[in-house]
């Protein structure tokens, strides 16, 4: 079913009508994994229009583009579908050692937007999602039940989740079934 989900990012409600208030598919995105030595920071900022986050587990961005810190030399770049950055990045970065790999199709985005979003996620995520411990703007790879996700808090009660496409069904089902108790 993952293909149904992913092809043109059909809304997840396609999953046997499994749905939950506040749970939706994120809009189509272009995604890159950017790796590289410190020298890439300046040129990349030029291309993106903002600086890459260098604080652990933080995201930076404009309203269109976002950069999520995944590791000390690893960022997930998110931009609207069609906003291709690879050539511009390669050109700007030039000789500084780096790697840009497109992963637009590798993963899908899910948005959880509801007043009790953090509690709902706590059915499968072992992180402390209290605002003090996981503030707006924080992002990280972590585990949700048996699947790895990238969890990104974009609002007090809004979480963006990036998950590999073949794990999306599992994640969605789990959230909907476990979320039932929150009604």
């Amino acid at each position, binding site marked *: 079913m993952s293909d149904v989900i992913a092809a043109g990012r059909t809304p997840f409600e396609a999953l046997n009508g499994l749905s939950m208030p506040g749970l939706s598919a994120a809009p189509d995105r272009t995604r890159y994994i950017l790796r590289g030595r410190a020298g890439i920071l300046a040129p990349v900022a030029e291309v993106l229009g903002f600086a890459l986050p260098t604080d*652990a587990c933080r995201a930076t961005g404009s309203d269109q583009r976002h950069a999520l810190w995944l590791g000390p030399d690893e960022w997930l770049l998110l931009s609207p579908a069609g906003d291709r950055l690879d050539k511009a990045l390669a050109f700007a970065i030039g000789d500084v050692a780096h790697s840009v790999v497109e992963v637009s199709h590798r993963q899908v985005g899910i948005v959880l937007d509801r007043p009790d979003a953090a509690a709902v996620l706590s059915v499968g995520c072992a992180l402390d999602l209290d605002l003090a411990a996981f503030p707006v703007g924080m992002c990280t*790879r972590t585990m949700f039940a048996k699947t790895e996700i990238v969890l990104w808090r974009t609002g007090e009660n809004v979480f963006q989740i990036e998950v590999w496409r073949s794990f999306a069904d599992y994640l969605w089902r789990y959230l909907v079934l476990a979320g039932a108790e929150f009604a």
Partner: protein
Amino acid sequence: MLVITCPYCGPRPEIEFAHGGEAHIARPQDPSSLGVEDWTEFLYMRANPKGLHAERWRHLHGCARFFNALRDTTTDQFVATYRTGEPRPDLAAVKA
């Protein structure tokens, strides 16, 4: 489920990590020049102490970095975690 302090991401639940065995075992520069005993030592022989143990962890489902830790294997309490390449902290310093 242990809490492990990733030197990059801070305290995180054990399920995000992979264990990497004994730390500070460097792969020989030129393995082919090694005698069989030395190679066997590198390949298989491991400290398995009851007490303080320097071990490798990887924040697999986090920043994905390998790092090292000092942990007491009789209590599972961590004394220190530090980045790959950094020397094993001496305890006096850690306690201080």
